[in-house]
């Protein structure tokens, strides 16, 4: 029985695997032979000391940091969740670096759209400092204290910000689908660095555009030189080659014009005569009338060339209509495939609409500078299909969740899901939200989703919307690590008999298992009570889990009843759960008889 290890996906191993797939000859006994790799790459190797690069102090460390597996887990928090049993949305509290690591296996290549609104590094906002040695412990310490801003006088102003962004973006890229897209809000202070960073991580060729979003209207006379009224949203694709073209949906109003329809699609009859242009030629009408000059004797100019006109006529794209003023030549104005999104966004809400939206839900200003719902909803509508996952790992006031729910509500078929991640930053006592009883940002975020969801249901009357969310909290692994020191060696050995931490529940462990075997946190789980013992049937018989003590063969037999007919399931027990070693051996044999060989323990 193989043991599940307590770590998230090993990215280094995955990289070596990828190389092995491409060039099997460079991997010898799981090590990379660089000389061979060089040979394979021929002349294209940069050997000069001065090369085109973007670098800063700590970059190598940051790269390493992105690759070290996390030893944490995500613990379910049903109490602060909403519609736990049915929802497919997630709200995760914790340091987003660790959370992204934990999601690597379960959400690898599954996310269609990432939107983030990271700290802009204005000198007033908070920039998280990671710790190499024990990031989970570090996280717990940091969230116990009020945070310090990254000030401009700090000698490592840009460096700190880059060190924070680099590993997170790198991990985020892994989660994107091949046709996935990432959007990052930013302003003048770091846009140049951010773009350089993204060019390195996503590849220059995958840059789509930088939206310019007008975030303020009016005011600004107090600025010394220029009143800056815009921010950017930097957009990169994971792989531009497989990304389908973007189209905005037409408004109902616009579509009304296209009344007619034929084999080729929707159209309306439009006049072929044009006020300007230089396409002059005579057109003969059905009764022999020739149209060439208007009533003033000027040549009539037509929309298309003479050759094209005859081709259109043949294909039934032209008709002649007799009106009071003689013949009118008309052509089929066809509905284009869609509207192209424009890079300047001046009608997608602004900072004050964002603030207003939050104010309307709370009746006080609990959050400064939230993004407007309209802005993110706009991106969702032209970037995603109907059943996509949207991730925001700097979720702040949870505008992204609000936008996802609203865009689902506004559509007949859209059922997108969101995953939000937020560090539970402690609020300062003079904070408006603190006075209202919220202790950290996550509490505001969650309450915002609750209220926004209710409001949307009320306003649209749609009852089948998924307005819930499952809450998970970052914590250290449920499994004790083998960490003997000289003084408590005996104690540790004794402890390890039961290797699950005392204060953790079966469910904590269940979700850790899901993450470790790479299943989404919203996987359907059926709880079966068998003589007072719980069996978990995960994903319709794909995984069968029993984390009880005193497991006997009856339970194993019972578990077999639930296995899927389409695939051999994975079966997982608690390591120390069997009544005796004999039972354990028997259990393995019994399962084997039923074709199940994938048996694990935690």
């Amino acid at each position, binding site marked *: 029985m193989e043991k599940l290890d307590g770590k998230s996906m090993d990215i280094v191993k995955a990289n070596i695997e990828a190389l092995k797939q491409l060039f099997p000859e460079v991997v010898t006994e799981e090590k990379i032979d660089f000389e061979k790799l060089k040979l394979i790459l021929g002349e294209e190797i940069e050997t000069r000391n001065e090369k085109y690069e973007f670098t800063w102090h700590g970059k190598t460390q940051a790269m390493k940091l992105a690759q070290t597996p996390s030893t944490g887990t995500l613990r379910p928090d049903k109490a602060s969740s909403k519609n736990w049993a049915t929802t497919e949305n997630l709200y995760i509290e914790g340091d987003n670096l660790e959370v992204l690591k934990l999601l690597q296996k379960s959400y690898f290549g599954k996310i269609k759209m990432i939107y983030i609104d990271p700290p802009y590094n204005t000198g007033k906002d908070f920039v998280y400092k990671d710790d190499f040695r024990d990031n989970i412990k570090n996280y717990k310490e940091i969230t116990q204290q009020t945070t310090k801003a990254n000030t401009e006088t700090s000698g490592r102003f840009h460096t700190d910000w880059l060190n924070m962004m680099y590993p997170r973006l790198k991990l985020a890229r892994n989660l994107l689908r091949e046709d996935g897209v990432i959007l990052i809000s930013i302003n003048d202070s770091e846009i140049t660095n951010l773009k350089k960073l993204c060019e390195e991580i996503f590849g220059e060729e995958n840059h789509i555009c930088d939206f310019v979003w007008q975030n303020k209207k009016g005011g600004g006379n107090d600025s010394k030189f220029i009143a800056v009224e815009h921010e950017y949203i930097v957009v990169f694709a994971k792989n531009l080659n497989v990304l389908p073209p973007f189209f905005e949906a037409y408004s109902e109003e616009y579509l009304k014009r296209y009344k007619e329809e*034929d*084999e080729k699609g929707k159209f309306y009859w439009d006049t072929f005569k044009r006020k300007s242009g230089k396409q002059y030629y005579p057109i003969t009408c059905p009764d022999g009338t020739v149209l060439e000059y208007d009533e003033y004797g000027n040549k009539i100019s037509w929309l298309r060339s003479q050759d094209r006109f005859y081709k259109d006529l043949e*294909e*039934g794209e032209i008709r002649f209509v007799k009106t009071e003023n003689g013949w009118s030549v008309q052509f089929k104005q066809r509905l284009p495939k869609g509207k192209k999104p424009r890079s300047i966004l001046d009608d997608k809400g602004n900072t004050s609409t964002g603030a207003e939206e939050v104010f309307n839900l709370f009746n006080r200003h609990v959050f400064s500078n939230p993004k407007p719902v309209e802005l993110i909803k706009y991106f969702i509508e032209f970037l995603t299909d109907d059943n996509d996952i949207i991730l925001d790992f700097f979720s702040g006031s949870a505008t992204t969740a609000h936008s996802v729910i609203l865009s689902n509500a506004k559509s007949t078929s859209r059922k997108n899901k969101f995953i939000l991640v937020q560090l539970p930053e402690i609020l300062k006592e003079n904070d408006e939200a603190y006075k209202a009883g919220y202790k950290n940002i996550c509490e505001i975020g969650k309450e915002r989703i609750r209220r926004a969801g209710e409001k949307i249901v009320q306003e649209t009357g749609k009852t089948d919307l998924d307005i819930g969310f499952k809450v998970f909290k970052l914590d250290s692994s449920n499994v004790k690590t083998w960490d003997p020191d000289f003084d408590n060696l005996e104690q540790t050995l004794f402890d390890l008999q039961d290797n699950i931490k005392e204060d953790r529940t079966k469910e904590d462990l269940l979700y850790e298992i899901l993450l470790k075997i*790479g299943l989404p946190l919203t*996987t359907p789980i059926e709880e079966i009570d068998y003589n007072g013992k719980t069996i978990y049937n995960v*994903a319709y018989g794909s995984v069968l889990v029993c984390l009880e003590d005193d497991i006997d063969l009856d339970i194993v037999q019972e578990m077999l009843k639930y296995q*899927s007919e389409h*695939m051999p399931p994975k079966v997982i027990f608690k390591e120390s759960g069997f009544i005796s070693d004999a039972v354990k051996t028997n259990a393995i044999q019994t399962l084997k008889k039923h074709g199940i060989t*994938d048996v694990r323990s935690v």
Partner: protein
Amino acid sequence: MAGFTFYARIGLDDKVRPLHKKLDKKMFYDFADLTKKEKDYITKYVDRIELTYLLTPSVVNIQPFINEDYHYEGVMFITIRLRQETKDAHLSVIGEIIQGALPNPVVIVFEKEGNIQVGTCLKRLNKIDKTQVVLEEFAYTPWFSSDSDDEMVRRFIDAVHITALSFSHFFRFYQDIHIAVQAFQHVKAVGAFYIATDEESRQLIAQIEQAEAEIAKWKNKIKKETQFNRKVEYNMKIQQLTKQIEQWKQQLR
């Protein structure tokens, strides 16, 4: 001849005299605009094409139905004898060629190794070029033996029996046959011989069919997949679709 047993069983023989007019393959090559692949199919797999019956207002008391979309002046019954090596996948291609080449509504009876399969297709006129038709919706029964006593075959024969069809006009007449063919086609998915006349049940059946096809696709994928979490994903899709199909079947009854 399996086809003739079928025609006799549905009472066509008592109503009209058969023509048994052989149609040259060459006519299809010249007349219809066929690709090389399509020509190959006809050459390789089709043994004989015959216009067995031609129902027109002059031989049977049914009115034509003509408006700007539909031109149903009569109905042809064409018997196609297939060679042994024909695979089921070739059938729909051959059906499409024949249906596309003839502007009138056609009931095709395929014969192979003593079994038959009936195919229909609803057509309407091309809005731009009135000499062309647009093939809207195909339907094919499964293979069956025309003298079989199987319940589903019996129900199908009863449904397309000449006395069971509407004689009000050719469009209704043909539609009745088409709906019966569809009912037989969907037996496997729906689990019953269900004549779907209203739009809602037609849609339900189409959804069930589509979901069944999707399940087959995932089952294939699950076999080939090595990554455990992908297997789980496909397993979930299969189970969810299965549940969904059950719900739809409930709605049909």
